[in-house]
């Protein structure tokens, strides 16, 4: 047993930091904030050029070279730098699935462009009436001629405005159990009938409503068997490999809050950090941050050992996001009235940071599976409690 990060992970971490310093400059950061897009092409291309996307794929899928601990270091450093990585995690996950179950055309035409970092893919799972209950998707795909006609609507699609394809969950059969009538497609975003409507998240990032109206695609864009979508979904889930977002948000919040607490308030009096009430709360925050880091490390280790970090990944996400949400609420309270002020710069600076975290926090307990879904998974799969 050893709690030190592996040497390989530390070496890779240093490389990632170097790349971020080179590529994710203040100007690039500014552009990301202005557009609100959760994606930065210069950064994404640089990552692709270094071969890191291909290396992130499982060895069996023709990738390899980076173990999950190294991948965890990559995402941790992106998060630490406040760099967007929704696009990168989409690409890693979808590429893994396509390498596993994609047909020859897709593997020849799509995969190389994704792995090189020049193309983007977005995820079309969630719909207006199916979020946690993802298998209840109603976006309809009907066989028509040689291909398919798709009609429906997807919600909260991030980076769709930058994507070349959408990895789309559709319903091909209304008969039998809902899991048995699903089919996946990879649909080119420039196909007629696809339109986007921007929706702003609480912290100002852009996501989309993706409309599909009479979208026609050839059968070559089908991924997996007809009505075999749920099997593809399970493959996709297995490739998420314990990427626990939200852990570093708390780390950054702790650092900024400590820095804030050391300042003498403009209205006079001692710095808050001398107040025992504040001190106890800061220490609690530090403990929660340490625990979140250990739980995320465990999930990465489980994945590195060749097992699926199902319950461990859920545990890391649940603890990190819930404790971050509590911390964000307390930190803005600590800043008092001045904490309300919004700042155009939402980097690592104190100004506007608490306001930003308070906006950001609720999303961490929702995206990629709500806290309730994580708890169900831990209770039923981890503890073996009976399903209702």
């Amino acid at each position, binding site marked *: 047993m050893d709690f030190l990060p592996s040497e390989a992970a530390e070496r890779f971490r240093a490389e990632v930091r170097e790349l971020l310093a080179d590529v994710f400059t203040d100007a690039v950061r500014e552009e990301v904030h202005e557009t609100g897009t959760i994606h930065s092409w210069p950064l994404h291309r640089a990552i692709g050029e270094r071969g890191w996307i291909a290396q992130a794929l499982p060895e069996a899928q023709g990738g390899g070279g980076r173990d999950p601990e190294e991948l965890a270091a990559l995402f941790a450093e992106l998060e630490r730098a406040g760099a967007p990585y929704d696009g990168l995690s989409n690409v890693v996950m979808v590429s893994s699935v396509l390498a596993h179950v994609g047909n020859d055309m897709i593997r020849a035409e799509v995969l190389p462009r994704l792995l090189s970092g020049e193309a983007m893919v977005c995820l079309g799972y969630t719909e207006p009436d199916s979020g946690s209950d993802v298998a209840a998707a109603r976006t309809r795909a009907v066989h028509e001629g040689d291909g398919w006609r798709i009609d429906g609507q997807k919600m909260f699609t991030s980076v769709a405005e930058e994507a070349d394809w959408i990895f789309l969950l559709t319903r091909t059969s209304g008969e039998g159990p809902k899991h048995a009538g699903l089919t996946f497609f990879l649909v080119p975003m420039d196909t007629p009938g696809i339109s986007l409507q921007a929706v702003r998240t609480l912290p100002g990032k852009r996501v989309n409503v993706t409309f599909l109206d009479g979208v026609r695609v050839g059968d070559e864009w089908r991924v997996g068997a007809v009505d075999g979508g749920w099997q593809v979904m399970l493959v996709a889930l297995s490739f998420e490999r314990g990427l626990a977002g939200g852990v570093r948000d708390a780390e950054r919040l702790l650092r900024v809050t400590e820095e804030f607490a050391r300042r003498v308030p403009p209205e006079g009096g001692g710095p808050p950090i001398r107040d025992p009430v504040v001190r106890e709360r800061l*220490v609690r925050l*530090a403990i929660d941050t340490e625990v979140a880091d*250990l739980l995320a490390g*465990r999930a990465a280790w489980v994945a590195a050992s060749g097992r699926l970090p199902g319950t461990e990944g859920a545990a890391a996400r649940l603890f990190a996001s819930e404790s971050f949400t509590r911390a964000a609420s307390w930190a803005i309270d600590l800043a008092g009235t001045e904490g309300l002020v919004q700042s155009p710069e939402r980097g690592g600076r104190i100004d506007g940071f608490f306001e930003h975290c308070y906006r950001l926090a609720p999303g961490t307990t929702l995206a990629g599976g709500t806290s*309730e879904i994580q*708890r169900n998974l*831990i209770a039923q799969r*981890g503890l073996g409690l009976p399903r*209702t």
Partner: protein
Amino acid sequence: MDLELGEEQAALVDVVASIADRSSSPAAVRAHEELGFSAELWRRLGEAGLPGIALPEREGGGGAGLLELALAVEVLGAHVAPAPLVEHAVTARLLARAAGPPPGHVVDGTTIATLALRPPIDGVARLLPAGAVAATFVARRGDDLIQVTSDAPGAAVANLASAPLAHRRVDPATVVASGPTARALHDRAVAEWQALTAALLAGLGAGVLELARTYVVDRHQFGRPIGSFQAVQHTLADVTVALDGAQLLARKAAWALDRDRDDAPDLAAMAFLFAAEQAQHAAERALHFHGGYGFMQEYDVQLYYRRAKGWPLVLGAPVREYQRLAASRYGAA
């Protein structure tokens, strides 16, 4: 990061588990509640070399580290075992550091040693952990680290945790170390005690969670197991995650102490505070899910509920521990 137990670590856990299964069943724990100590359990742990396992081999010990001890102690916590292994091991290591190889009867546990975590008041170490069973104890008095040995341990004071606590006079005392050395030795021993007690409490939490899990699967109301209700499932899921975190943090603290890392004392305090709160929450929720039965002495969950609070409280009020940790991180208030 590698969280796999080594071969020897796994073997150690197996040995302690088989001892605890045999000599620290709920019935055995209940049979020894008056003193809070089972001589049979202690003898078996002694035969397996546990009291001296984390002492250097050249001093007759097992040459293992605090991490191995932490793994062993987790198992004892899960069985709410009436054996002062944490206090004894920490004190034996302190004596070895201060004065060279401890005598064989301390290494093998025939003589139980313990540590006064708090300074004596008016010449008395009050509510000394393991004070009702230890023949010798170490305390910090002013600038000195002193050792007190007496034939008869103190009389047990009845307490919430059914722990062998006793008031002990601090004389006749032998000075073991003085000045800054005394302080450093005592601080280190308290940090070790915190890391190991964190492991004990993480283990206790895991034990009481298993009691709760079994109960909510068995118990039916409204025609179905209460463990199928989401209110119960979600609470136990939160408890599981927190206890996993407590176990990882306790192990990391022990690991950091073994390597004398700079962050080790803070990690030990963090592990201790977190494990105490989470074990208490786990026990309180587990008791609650037992319904009225949980409130009855005949159900085992109360054994855990009382110790989860009592075991950590011998260090003093947690609010003061939080402030001590804050002083270490942020300087004096």
